[in-house]
């Protein structure tokens, strides 16, 4: 190897390692924090390696494991259906809008853009969902709103625009219909775009608690994030004037409990990334058009 590239590689590795450690440290702190004894955190604060290990926080969370399991089921189910359905709808919308022979694509694109800038606001949205669609306490209230976001459609449309027209054209000449072109050619060529939007959707569904907070009343239908967020929210109430009414039995969750909750929620989604990652790296329409 050349001297210059050795120097380059060394510096590169050192820099990347340093950045990686910086990124990992907070996560490690959460992890060990969740295993630390509560009294130690109050006394000395968080440490990377605690003196006193403890499983108390996890014991507290898993005191009623059925509930956690149920919440996991809800969240995983929602995420899977949401991502599959969402990708299908988003890519279809994006594809149609990207086709140059679709006459009103600009008008419709503008229509979609418009909702990104101006929206009815929370209360009209709530009224629509509850009074007209009857979605109170329904899984659909969790599934539908994030399904087709204007931002994702625009992103998809622009991505598909970069696929050369000649591919569509060539397929047409070979006798393929519009859906076949979309399904057999455009979709496979759009994997990087699909992966990006799929990740957005998955994160969106996984992390959502707000929809559940607004629309869900039955405890069995709570997604994971909301289930855990509730305990933290109760702690915040302790510091307001409402506190006077809470019974003395009411205790705020401990610091370690917060950390354990974070681990339980983020754990699975962290593992999702490496699987999706390879699609990002793949080239776009590499070598698809010859001559």
């Amino acid at each position, binding site marked *: 190897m050349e001297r210059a590239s050795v120097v380059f590689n060394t510096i590169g590795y050192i820099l990347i390692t340093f950045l990686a450690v910086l990124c990992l440290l907070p996560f490690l702190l959460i992890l060990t924090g969740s295993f630390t004894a509560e009294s130690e955190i109050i006394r000395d604060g968080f440490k990377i390696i605690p003196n006193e290990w403890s499983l108390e926080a996890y014991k507290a969370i898993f005191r009623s494991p059925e509930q956690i399991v149920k919440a996991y089921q809800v969240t995983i189910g929602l995420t899977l259906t949401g991502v599959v359905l969402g990708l299908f709808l988003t890519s279809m919308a994006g594809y149609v809008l990207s086709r140059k022979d679709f006459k009103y694509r600009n008008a419709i694109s503008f229509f979609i853009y418009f909702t990104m800038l101006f929206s009815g606001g929370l209360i009209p949205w709530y009224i629509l969902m509850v009074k007209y669609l009857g979605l109170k306490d329904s899984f659909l209230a969790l599934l539908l709103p994030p399904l087709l976001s204007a931002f994702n459609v625009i992103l998809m449309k622009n991505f598909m625009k970069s696929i050369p027209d000649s591919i569509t054209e060539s397929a047409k000449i070979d006798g393929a219909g519009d859906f076949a072109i979309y399904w057999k050619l455009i979709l496979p060529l759009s994997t990087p775009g699909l992966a990006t939007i799929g990740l957005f959707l998955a994160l969106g569904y996984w992390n959502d608690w707000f929809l559940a907070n607004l629309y869900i009343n039955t405890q069995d239908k709570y997604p994971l994030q909301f289930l855990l967020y509730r305990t933290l929210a109760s702690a915040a109430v302790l510091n307001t004037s409402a506190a006077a*009414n809470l019974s003395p039995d009411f205790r705020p969750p401990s610091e370690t409990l917060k950390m354990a909750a974070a681990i339980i929620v983020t754990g699975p989604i962290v593992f999702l990334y490496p699987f999706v990652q390879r699609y990002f790296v793949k080239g776009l329409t590499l070598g698809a058009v010859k001559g």
Partner: protein
Amino acid sequence: MNRKIKNLFSVVISALMVIVLLAACGGNAGNGGKADNQPKTGNTGSPQNEGNVDLSEKVELVWYLLGEPHKDTEAVVAEFNKMLAEELNTTVKLNFTSWADWETKYNLLLSAGERIDMIFASTWANYYKYAAQGAFLPLDDLLPVYAPETWKNVSEQDWKEAKVNGKIYAVPSTYPEYTPDGIVYREDWRKELGLPEIKDLDSIEAYLDGVKREKGVTPINGKAYNEIYTMFRAYYDFQHIGGDSGVVVATSYDTPRDIVAYPFTDEFEEWVKKMRTWAEKGYWNSDTLSSQSEAGDAIKVGTGAVYWRNAPGAGGFIMGQKTDNPDIELAYFPFSRFHNYVMPTLSVQNAMAIPKSAKYPERSLMVLDKLRNDPKYYDLMTYGFEGVHYDISEDGRTIVTPPASRADDPDYANYDIASWGWRVESMQRVKPAGGWPEFDNLLAEFRETSRPNIFAGVMMDYEPVRAEQAAVNAVMQQYGLPLMMGLISDVEKGLETYRKQLEAAGVHKLVDYVKEKANAHFDAIGVK
């Protein structure tokens, strides 16, 4: 030909997709609609004669409470519904808002016109504001007919406090409470160090000083703003108007119409100078304003000594430590002793109201009447099942938790939901403040020195001065808090900047507005 078939296929597929989606929504909407319509037809047909209420129609009510359900709430409500179905041909679907972002949710529930037959209401959940905006149903005509017992039992004064523009919009709980601010402190350390008993500001200072010097412990170890700020207000008898009114206060109970912004008073100057010396001596940490830890947590592990609580909250904290850390001895000093009087909370501190969107206000009131006055219902909904959640103690009056059968059950949790809205003092079976023995004495003291609450009832809607209020609050956060905590080395200069910034933010306009509202209220209730 082939292409045509494929084309057709794609059209059919997409059409199917759309249909499936629409059907999913539509099906649900249909269900919702049916549930809504069914009872409606019955309602219009039922005659409502006074004293002779028609119960022939089966009704499901939708109720909302603030907070979280208990694990067993479902079973308890099922039992409750069984009894209700027999006696009133009614069932209740009990929903909870949960504490997550509850203010937004509460607002949505009331403004979206969703069908709700009864909801928890409170001064701290903006009862007066929502009532004035017409979110609740006026109950004056309904109460004597559908909730006769409650109508009779609740005192005139309590009804008066529930009135907005001359009409009653909620059924207040019958549970007079005193919630003066104060501090919980390590009594064992005070005795050990031979410090004077805490009874005024000087003895508090002596205590803080002793703990800091002899024990080497930061007395208020964590967020200290509440401790210092409530002490400040109580010490000079500055009174907030209509809830938390920020920097705008009445200068004392006896001069309610003398309303000022406290940063401009000489008292404030004197106080922040004192606080500067306290901060320099290290009675709290220099990061106290950004700290996220509760001073109470530090007491638990022996690294703190003082914690702000209101009186019932102090009881809960002290009793909690008695079981967790029995070797720590704690005591409580209510700031009300600075001026030797307390004001009870308003009756609508906790109440049940009926939103405008209710379909069966009459039934809701009938259920509430039962709930408030029949021990069978009251005990079930407030304390859960006997034998599962509690035992009746020997005196036959109070209850014991946990029940003997579950004494060693790690899964046991006190049955506890947001039952404050229907609380009635004579029906209560648990002692207030977690059974803290000292509380009885305190309560006697409070009752003796109680003065009517003339400030809390002022209806403050800051809408017309929202810009000024936001600006003033921002200035208070930026300049006022550090000054209050003695974190600014040059007090004089800091105070000057603070006052200047407040003026620029429009504090005078805010004071004038509060004055106007307060004076109107004082005129109405006959306070000079």
